[in-house]
């Protein structure tokens, strides 16, 4: 099955990836090949098979409700490109 450019554009938008024209062309071609390849799965007989989300069959372990983190804002914000008064900055969001 071949993906259309529209489909690839929609996927790129969902994934928030800006691609240039060449990248689009290459993506349409390579993603189509990958999709063709994984389409093999459709031949497997999986009637009644429980989907496996996890390699080990165990349950979630729980953590006690204890506060054990302290304020490390200054350290953590050293990796941020734009901060002001302790806030991370992004271009204005309009609701």
């Amino acid at each position, binding site marked *: 099955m071949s993906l259309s450019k529209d489909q690839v554009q929609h996927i790129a938008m969902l994934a928030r990836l800006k691609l240039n024209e060449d990248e689009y062309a290459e993506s349409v071609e390579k993603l189509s090949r990958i999709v063709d390849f994984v389409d093999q799965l459709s031949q497997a007989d999986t009637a009644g098979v429980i989907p496996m989300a996890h390699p080990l069959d165990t349950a*979630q*372990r729980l953590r006690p*409700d204890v506060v*054990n983190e302290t304020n*490390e804002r200054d350290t953590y914000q050293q990796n941020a490109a734009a901060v002001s008064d302790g806030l991370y900055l992004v271009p204005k969001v309009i*609701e």
Partner: protein
Amino acid sequence: MKAGWETVIGLEIHSQLATRSKIFSGAATAYGAEPNTQACLVDLGYPGVLPVLNEEVVHMATMFGLAVDATVAPRSVFARKNYFYPDLPKGYQISQFELPIVEHGELYISDAEGKQKRIGITRAHLEEDAGKSIHEGLEQNSGIDLNRAGTPLLEIVSEPDLSSAQEAVAYMRKIHTIVRYLGISDGNMQEGSFRCDANVSVRPVGQEALGTRTEIKNLNSFRFVEKAINFEIERQIEHLEDGGKVVQETRLYDSDKDETRPMRSKEEANDYRYFPDPDLLPVEISAEYIESVRQQLPELPVAKQRRFVDDYGLKPDDADLLTSSRALADFFEAAASATDAKTQLVANWVIGDLSGALNRDGLDIADSKVSASELAGLLTRIHDNTISGKIAKQVFEAMWDGEGTADAVIEAKGLKQITDSSAIEAVVDEVIAANPGQVAEYKAGKDKLIGFFVGQVMQATKGQANPGQVNQILKAKLGS
């Protein structure tokens, strides 16, 4: 609402759970801290860090499930809801999708005719809250504060069983009462700890199929819920009557303008690509655990209301009012147990004068200026005829103003009731002597004048004479 239409409403209530630490990290959940000082590496979605589930949220969700007669799932699964937004640091929200922790619950509200109406609770699931965007004072930017990111939420989803804004509010109040009874949420709506999204649609009466719905996001007061839904119902009906179509969309309620409008940021159709979170394993809850939580569950409003009617002989409506909050019910029970006065009298005072004074001063029951035992002291003095009910109101106001206990106020102001019949007889004699005309009329058969004589006696005793005795003595002396 316009005749010929009916409304279908479902609510998604987000109730913040009152844990100390976050749902998946050890950062504090306290409200009002400086921006990003309570956002640890997990809350910030730093590369390499992993979520670990807080046991208290499982406990709290279990309590809620039991409180609304729901099924607590033996196995529930966390999923990722993928979308990009600046207040969502990982680019996905950890929530529950296919297998929520609570399913198939219910509760009852009073409908417009006062009849009990069942409202189904589809599910309640655990999820993490997002951060906050700040738009003011940053020119062309928005600022992101992630302190709230990772705060535990219980999202409670109702069936579309609600038929009016009033019912929606009644239902939301019930849930609010339950979560506060259980102590699993502070229910503080100003701080956003309790908020809801309302799904609203209308259809012509008799039509089977549901109309197209809109979702009004983030309503954080009971008043706004009512107003927003009513606005939305009118808007949809008007639009349909004009031959238009309702567009399925997310809307925001503007309380300044009292209207709803489409949300810009949600315009793009979302595809959340839910899938099981591979960092978290299925949550397993044993039957023994559920049973132990059930044993420790506090008495809930419905049971308490029934008990107040059965054990205290209260009127059902009064019992309803008294059990609307756990603190109020506790106050009533403390007062009732500390006096021999009739429980209905205690109820009347808690609902009447006490609640009135609290409202007037904008106080919470916890901050009442008259304690339950102090109120009981006052009611005991009514019960043993030391004061009349009328004088008691005066005493109560003095107590509220900090003038001491009931006994101290009665003593200081000399408000003790006169029950000495010879003293009352003397006053009665004076009143009869002073009003010969009225006496003649009374004797001629104008029975209603008895009230006039009682009033005169009470006035002369500054209200302190025992009204029953006054009546009795008057009737004897007037010889009827």
